[in-house]
């Protein structure tokens, strides 16, 4: 059985809930089961935010992440808050602005997700799509075609090219992070 437990964390407003939804929909497009849950504070922007996705070939009973396989942390605070939940052999994907602890033992991929969205695409609102490209580029947890189809289903009309570019940049920085 193939099962992924993924936690996407950062701050409110970075689009991580939508990223989780898109990741879950990519898995469904591939014929798998997926459950997405979220947690966020009472504030609309700026508070800690996480979106969790469990993907499995089998029925999913417990909907939340228990043994995190893949953790995305876009902020220092979210890294510090959720790092302990990542299992020993789990994969840690961080924005390059995040400083990891000296004691950090996980396999780490650091990629300029936030900076690429701003500098290469000029649109901080596609941060979440760049992040998805990065995660899938590193882990191959869903097929790129499925991810693109899921992204295009969810984004506003007229932004398709921008979002495809965001995915491409995500794959690119994933490649660089793996070197």
């Amino acid at each position: 059985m193939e099962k992924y437990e993924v936690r996407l964390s950062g701050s409110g407003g970075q689009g991580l809930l939508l990223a989780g939804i898109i990741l879950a929909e990519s898995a469904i497009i591939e014929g798998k089961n997926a459950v997405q849950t979220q947690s966020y504070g009472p504030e609309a922007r700026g508070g800690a935010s996480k979106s969790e996705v469990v993907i499995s070939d089998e029925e999913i009973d417990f909907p939340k992440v228990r043994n995190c396989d893949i953790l995305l942390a876009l902020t220092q605070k979210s890294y510090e808050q959720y790092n302990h939940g990542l299992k020993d052999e789990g994969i840690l994907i961080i924005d390059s602005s995040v400083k990891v602890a000296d004691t950090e033992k996980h396999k780490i991929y650091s990629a300029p997700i936030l900076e690429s969205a701003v500098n290469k695409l000029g649109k901080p609102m596609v941060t979440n799509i760049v992040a998805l490209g990065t995660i899938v580029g590193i882990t191959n947890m869903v097929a790129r075609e499925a991810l693109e189809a899921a992204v295009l289903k969810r984004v506003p009309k007229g932004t398709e090219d921008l979002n495809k570019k965001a995915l491409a940049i995500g794959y690119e920085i994933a490649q660089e992070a793996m070197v």
Partner: protein
Amino acid sequence: MKKEARLMQGNEACVEGAIAAGMRFYAGYPITPSTEIAEISAEKLPYVGGKFIQMEDEIAGMAAVIGGSLTGLKSMTATSGPGFSLKQENIGYAAIAEIPCVIVDVQRGGPSTGQPTCPSQGDVMQAKWGTHGDHPVIALTPSSVKETFDLTVRAFNLAEKYRMPVLLMMDEVIGHMREKVELPDPSELEIIDRKRPDCDKDKYIAFKPDEDLVPPMADFGIGYRYHVTGLVHDETGFPSNSTKVADQLIRRLVDKIEMHKHDIIQWEEENTEDAEVIIFSYGCVSRAARTAMKALRDKGVKVGTFRPITIWPFPEERLLELAKKVKTIIVAEMNLGQMVLEVERICNNVTKIDRVNKVSGDIIYPEEIVAKVEEVL
């Protein structure tokens, strides 16, 4: 027709179910974590000829739902803890005036505004006793997105069949989570509409029950004239000070449920045949219970699960049968012990009862249930 599997949120499934059941009026006041139910109702109702209204507060939302239902439209409101408290008086009004309607409570941490974005099961006793006076209660509690759809349809059916408010007790996890669902084709659904009078308009006695204790209900405004009040009333609907009338009315309202409880009560059980321990849970916690059960079964521990789908009226007959066969029932719930009181009332002299409780705003994890089972064995 091939059904398309799609990712759907619990709150969205609630609206899909409501519209499939025939909801054509929604009134309410948005509150986390139920807000999507209002949002999606506002978006979808106009496409099916329905109406959505955002009222000034939850009290007015409940009152408008009662009015909408009186005119013959299937009506619903949704809220969370603080709003559920505000709606209670009018829920009692709907009970005594026998107004079919559906009230959804997506439970969050309380009391007061508590934890708006966190799950809880702290309102399950409020569902039973929140409004004053003896009154009939039907409360259903889903544990998945698909079941939220199914139970919303069922909530409308029961409301229409028994002419009363029906409560759908969700929780933040079920309301907000998204999972893969395939919704049934609307033609496959059983949809129940309220009994309407077939007598002449001047012969209509609004609260004269049939043999099933349910009076036929005329749409207000089409010529069947009758009086609706929150006061104790006789069969015409006008207030009465007669002790006999009061006794008959209140007993009939409660007996209406008692008489039909086998039609209303549903539960699900798994691996109870040889179980030594039964994990009792409902709503999102039953997902943790199932994971815990599988992990324990893998270790050879004889454990089963019992999940009330209808929490009120409570599935006591079946639970008592099971209690006689097991060593312990563990009640896991996201409050400091509410449904466990009902389990204790029924099973106290028959088996041991233990608890797993949580009020931190986090879901109960399978590991916590596993630890409790291992402790009691």
